[in-house]
C-alpha cells in the first residue's frame, strides 16, 4: 500500500446516511476474483440506468466530479456487508478519503487496509462542511494525516485516527507483514494452547 501523508482535492458530496456496501458495489459484481477494475461498478445502481447509460442526475456522473479524491458521505457509511470490494471500488475510482460523521466498523478496517482514509468528523463540523460544500462545491479540502487534521473553508477540524492506523497510512505499512513479524509469539501462544477444541480436517 503506497504511503499517504497529505491530500488536497475538491470533494464529491453524497451526504446520505447509512450508505450500505450493497449500494457502494452491488453483489452481482462480487463474482470477480480480482481486486482491480471494480471502480466502474462503484454505486452502479445509482449511477447507471437499466440499459447501462449514465444517469445524469447522479453526482458521480457530473463532469466536474472527475478526478476528485474525497467523498463526503453521511452517518454510518459502509454499513452492511463486510465486502472489501467496497473500498476497492472507491480506491479504483481514485478516492483516497471518505469524510463522514461515523463509519461502520468493518468498513473502517477495510478502508484502512487499502490506504483509504476514513475521516470521522463531529456531527456539527460535518453539518457545517456539507452546508459549505453545497454553496461552494469546488472548494479544495486539505488533509494532513500526520496531524489528523482536515482544513476546509478556513476552519481546521481534527479527526480520530488510532496511532497504529496513522502510522500504517503514513509509512504505507503492510499489516500482514507486521503480523508475520509476530510469528514467534504466535507459536508460543499455540504451544500454550496445545490442542484445538476442534479440528476441521
Amino acid at each position, binding site marked *: 500500500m503506497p504511503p499517504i501523508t497529505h491530500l488536497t482535492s475538491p470533494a464529491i458530496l453524497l451526504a446520505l446516511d447509512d450508505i450500505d456496501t*450493497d449500494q457502494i458495489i452491488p453483489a452481482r459484481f462480487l*463474482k470477480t476474483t480480482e481486486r482491480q477494475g471494480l471502480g466502474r461498478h462503484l454505486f452502479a445502481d445509482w449511477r447507471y440506468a437499466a440499459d447501462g447509460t449514465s444517469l445524469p442526475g447522479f453526482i458521480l456522473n457530473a463532469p466536474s466530479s472527475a478526478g476528485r479524491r474525497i467523498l463526503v458521505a453521511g452517518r454510518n457509511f459502509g454499513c452492511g456487508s463486510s465486502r472489501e470490494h467496497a473500498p476497492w471500488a472507491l480506491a479504483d475510482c481514485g478516492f483516497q478519503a471518505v469524510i463522514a460523521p461515523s463509519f461502520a466498523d468493518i468498513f473502517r478496517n477495510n478502508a484502512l487496509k487499502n490506504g483509504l482514509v476514513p475521516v470521522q468528523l463531529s456531527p456539527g463540523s460535518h453539518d457545517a462542511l456539507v452546508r459549505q460544500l453545497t454553496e461552494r462545491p469546488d472548494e479544495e479540502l486539505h488533509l494532513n494525516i500526520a496531524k489528523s487534521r482536515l482544513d476546509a473553508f478556513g476552519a481546521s477540524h481534527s479527526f480520530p485516527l488510532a496511532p*497504529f492506523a496513522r502510522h500504517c497510512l503514513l509509512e504505507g505499512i503492510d499489516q500482514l507483514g507486521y503480523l508475520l513479524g509476530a510469528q514467534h509469539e504466535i507459536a508460543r501462544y499455540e504451544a500454550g494452547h496445545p490442542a484445538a477444541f476442534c479440528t476441521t480436517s
Partner: protein
Amino acid sequence: MSSLSTTPAETPNVDSDASLADRPPRTLVDKIWDAHLVRDETADTPAILYVDLHLVHEVTSAQAFHELRQRRIGVRRPDRTIATMDHSTPTLLAPGKRRLQVADSQAAAQLDTLERHCADFGVPLLNLEHPGRGIVHVIGPELGLTQPGMTIVCGDSHTSTHGAFGALAFGIGTSEVADVLATQCLLQSRPRTMEVRVDGALGAGVTAKDVVLAMIAQIGVAGGQGHVIEYTGSAIRALDMEGRMTVCNMSIEAGARAGLVAPDETTYSWLMGRRHAPTGEAWSVALADWQSYRSDPGACYDRSLVIDASTLVPMVSYGTNPGMTIPISATVPAPDPSSDPKDRAHLEQALRYMGLTAGQRIAGQRVDVVFIGSCTNSRLGDLRAAAGVLAGRRVAPHVRLLVVPGSQDVKRQAEAEGLDAIVRAAGGEWRESGCSMCIAMNGDQLQPGQFAVSTSNRNFEGRQGKGGRTFLASPLTAAASAVAGAIADPRSLA
C-alpha cells in the same frame, strides 16, 4: 475426518478460584478476549488476537489466497480453517441431471478458484457435491465446529451468528482473511460491550426474528457501532439454539461488531453428538471449560438496553434498511415535518423506492414473491414453522414461494419429515441449499419493482435483485403472507 481432541484452557476461568477472588468481574466478551491475546494492545498498537476457527467461502477469499501465493506463504492452520460454497451457488439441478447448474461462467470460475486454492493450501472444502455443504453460518454450528469460548471469523458480516454458542464471532474483510490464513491472528482493538436483556415470555406467533427486528427498530442500524452485544434475560434463555442464532445473526444489522449469548444446557445438548464436538472424557473437560464462559455477577457493560418480550408482536420492515421496521399491525410512518430534514429525506427516498404510501397499513400490502431461507432463518425449526402454516393451505395464485434450506443436511432432515412435500403441495418451490435470493448472486432474484416478504436480513435497495423491494419478516409471517398474497399477521391464521 478425524475425531477431535480437547484440552482445558490454560488459564481457568472458574469464578470460584480463590486466586482470582480479587479480579474485577468480567463480561463474557472480556473472558474470550483475554483468553485469545497473543499480544495485548498498547497505546500505540492494536492487540494480536488468536483465531480458533476460520470459515471461508468463495466470494471473499480468492484475493486473500492470491496474496499468500504472491508472498509464497502457506495457510498456518488448515486444521482450524474450513471452506464451503454458498453465495453464488445454484439451488436448482441441471435439467435431467443430478448436478447443480451454475448460473454463469464468472460464478463457475469463482467456485473453481476456491476449489483450486483449497486443494493447493490443504484447506478442507465442502464443495458443490459434498453432502455437508451449506450456508457457512449454518454448517459451522451443524458440524459442531462452532463451540463456546471460541474466536471465530469469516469474510462475511453475518459471522455474528456463531455468537449464539457463546463464541466471539465476527466478520472481516478480505485483507483480514489473508491475515488469518497466514498467521491465524488478527489485529484488533478491544470492543465495547452492550447488554441487551430480553425478559418475559414471547406471545404466540412472535419469534426470535421479531425480537431482533424490534431491537434494531429501537436502536437503529448504527445503534450497536463499536460494541459487541451480549443478549441476556429470560426470553433469550427460553429460545432454542436456532432462535439464538437468528438473534445473533442480525446483530450486524444494528451495526454491532458481534452478538453473543452465554452457553447453557440448551447449548450443550445441541452440541452433543455433532460431528466435531468432543466425545467421552474430552466432552467433560470441554464442558467444564464452556461453563466458565458467562459474564460474572456484577460485570459492567458499557451500555445496556432492556426489552420486555411480552410487549413484542410480529415485526416487518417497510423501508430500505433493517432499522425501518414496524409492528405488523402498524401503518407506514409519515415523514415528520418537525424532524431533521436529512432524516425526512431519507424516509421519503425509502418510501419512493419501496413504492409505499405514508400512512398505509403494512398488513395487506400485496406481495409477488416470498423467500424463506438465508443464514437468518433457514434451519429446520424455521422450515417447520413455515410448513406448519402452509400445511393444508395454498400459496396465493399470484405469489411465487421459494423455500431454500440453509444446508444440505437441513434439506435432508426436512425431507425426512415431509416438509418438502408440504411446501410443494402448497404450490411453493423447494430448492437445494445456499444463500440464494438473500443476496441474488446465483440467478435467484427479484425482478425490478417486485415486492417480496423475505426471512433474510437485509432490505437494502437492490439486495434481492435490482429494483426489488424487500419486507423482512419471520418464517411464520412469510408463510402467512404467501398464503394471503399480501403481508399477513401469522396470528390471524388460527
